[in-house]
């Protein structure tokens, strides 16, 4: 039993140590619920500690709440029970749900104004914040971790297949040609993709400057309808479906489940988030890899810009002004070039301010890590249009599920691209109508 007692004493000590920062009684505590596990979670704690050390009025307490959906659901459940945190991290597909919950959220621009915190929206990268602004261009939430899909390719394999390892394919026909050469050189598959809806439909639309949904992708009203069954979309998806048959393209599962296909050198090309860079670097053991921009169909003209994915920080209603002041102070801290540049370089997420991008460049990070700037170039190549600002769709989590299901039916040959996309649009529209009824 002595052991038991030791464990308990020890645990009590640990619990006590955990609550130490609160010892500074005068400080206002701010809860921040986030979805960053692993090393990212460690970095989040580091940011919070940095903020806490930088001032003594507020104590920021980061709380891990599971993956993105779990975190969002936990925050909503907490809101219904009046236990909500001041800050919650919500992924991009939850944007419309958060926005339409007007009584539940405190827009960031308003928060900064009320707290008298210096705040200039022009400091931020418009291609990042654009996803999270209202029709008047006001920032509603604070971007935190944003990324955009890019093309990773196996340089070593390119060399073996007689391709130029320094010029990744820029167009889809070039992707096909490269894939066939890779296959001829003994690689079983040409390319695979993570997050199929995000990369092959959502970003595909922005990149080719065609609407994913009407009403400026939902920015101009909740009566939006999905539009990703246009001829260009159908052409792209049906071509991919035909490629699936001879493994020019090989589907590797939802989310990032396809990553091992690239690590394993089964597929020589891989489209996924720019934030996957660190993971690829760690796992690409026997080969060199490079980063290129997303391919495009030449007949659709030059590419526009890609859109982001990731998550932002939303401020929830129901807290004291004192807490909101602390939140505003924290957002300023988070936006400072040093914090942003460090976060950007450590995680591979995009910097959210021009100053942070500039600082990173000055520090020589892009030169040392070739390819890490592709995402920023791709995002900022052109001023975003109505088709490439972002997406604002209600029930988007479920719509993505629908898209996943229909795409899978297309890949395995149960449906043609036209049938599958029509069906996805129809089912998705039903979800949009349902959302329209509960919104405002």
């Amino acid at each position, binding site marked *: 039993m002595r052991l038991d007692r030791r464990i308990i004493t020890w645990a009590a000590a640990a619990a006590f140590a955990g609550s130490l920062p609160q010892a500074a009684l005068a400080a206002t505590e701010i809860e921040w619920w986030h979805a960053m596990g692993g090393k990212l979670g460690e970095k989040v704690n580091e940011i919070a500690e940095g903020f806490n050390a930088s001032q003594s009025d507020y104590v920021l307490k980061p709380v891990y709440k599971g993956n993105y959906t779990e975190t969002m659901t936990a925050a909503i459940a907490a*809101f219904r029970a009046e236990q909500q945190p001041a800050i919650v991290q919500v992924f991009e597909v939850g944007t419309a*749900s958060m926005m339409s919950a007007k009584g539940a959220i405190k827009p960031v621009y308003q928060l900064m104004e009320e707290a008298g915190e210096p705040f200039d929206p022009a400091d931020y990268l418009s291609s990042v914040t654009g996803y999270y602004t209202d029709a008047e261009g006001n920032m509603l939430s604070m971007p935190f971790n944003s990324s955009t899909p890019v093309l990773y390719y196996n340089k070593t394999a390119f060399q073996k297949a007689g391709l130029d390892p320094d010029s990744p394919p820029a167009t889809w026909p070039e992707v096909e040609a490269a894939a066939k050469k890779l296959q001829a050189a003994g690689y079983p598959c040409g390319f695979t993709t993570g997050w199929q809806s995000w990369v092959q439909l959502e970003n595909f639309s922005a990149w080719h400057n065609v609407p994913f949904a009407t009403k400026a992708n939902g920015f101009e009203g909740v009566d939006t309808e999905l539009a990703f069954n246009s001829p260009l979309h159908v052409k792209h998806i049906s071509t991919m479906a035909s490629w699936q048959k001879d493994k020019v393209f090989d589907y590797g599962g*939802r989310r990032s489940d396809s990553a*091992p296909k690239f690590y394993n050198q089964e597929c020589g090309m891989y489209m996924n988030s720019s934030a996957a860079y660190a993971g690829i670097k760690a796992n690409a053991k026997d080969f060199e890899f490079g980063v290129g921009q997303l391919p495009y169909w030449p007949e659709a003209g030059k590419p526009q810009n890609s859109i982001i994915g990731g998550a932002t920080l939303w401020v929830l209603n129901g807290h004291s002004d004192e807490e909101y002041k602390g939140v505003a102070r924290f957002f300023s801290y988070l936006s400072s070039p040093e914090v942003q540049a460090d976060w950007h370089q450590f995680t591979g997420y995009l910097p959210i301010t021009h100053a942070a991008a500039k600082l990173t460049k000055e520090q020589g990070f892009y030169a040392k890590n070739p390819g890490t700037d592709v995402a920023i170039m791709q995002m900022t190549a052109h001023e975003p249009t109505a088709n490439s600002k972002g997406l604002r769709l209600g029930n988007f989590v479920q719509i993505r*599920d629908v898209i996943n299901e229909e795409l*899978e039916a297309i890949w395995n040959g149960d449906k043609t691209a036209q049938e599958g996309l029509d069906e996805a649009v129809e*089912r998705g529209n039903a979800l949009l109508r349902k959302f329209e009824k509960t919104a405002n």
Partner: protein
Amino acid sequence: MQHKRVIFQGRVLPYFLVLPQLIVTLVFFIWPASQALYQSVLLEDAFGLSTEFVWFENFEDLFADPSYLNSFKTTVVFSLGVTTLSMIAALVLAAMADRVVRGATAYKTLLIWPYAVAPAVAGVLWWFIFNPTIGVFAYALRQLGYDWNHFLSGSDAMILVIIAASWKQVSYNFLFFLAGMQAIPKSLIEAAAIDGAGPVKRFWTIIFPLLSPTTFFLLVVNVVYAFFETFGIVHATTSGGPAQATNILVFKVYNDGFIGLDLGGSAAQSVILMLIVIALTVVQFRYIERKVQY
């Protein structure tokens, strides 16, 4: 309902005895569950800021949705698969373990400890084993000439979730079957052996019939398990895909409600699920009470 012939007379005591459980049940089950029921006739945004009473619209939507009807079929296939596989495997193993003299405890121990593995952890393990690219199982099948890809093939995905869900249940079933077999008087089996019945014949004519209460109990437990407690496995391995091939009812409830935040639609599904189970349990309960006397 079955009852003792001889009972105590008590005015107050029985209430005291059932009270703790009743309170816990009322507060933490009936109350939230009835809120879930009420939710099924509402159309509400996730935050509960706007609420509209819509009568049975959520139910109408459900039954107009072919994917929901498809989910029923998937659930039946899945439950049959899990129940059959986990019970047969457990029965065979229990019959063997009942026979061995040497090493019986070791076998028993090795067969039951997977029961202790958390589903959340098991999901990760299955992801590793079946991953078409790096999974050992997929690799072995590839060597045999079968291209395993549960991301693409609906039947592969169904096999995967059935195996994963059954694995968790085999240990449990094994324990019950083994316990049942060890409770059979050895004299009965010896008598049959003297009459010249071989081990296989003895199993079918004596052991298996005597196991029927256990088998029936396990049937109920396994069906309930397959219906209700498997969304964690589906969530971790296939997320209902590809193309809804493994979208079982309980996963859909969880996914639409907890992930998709469609509270009304999800609540309507829970109501239907509850009705199914109430029907199932009433039938089974009557059957247990009448036919299988413990």
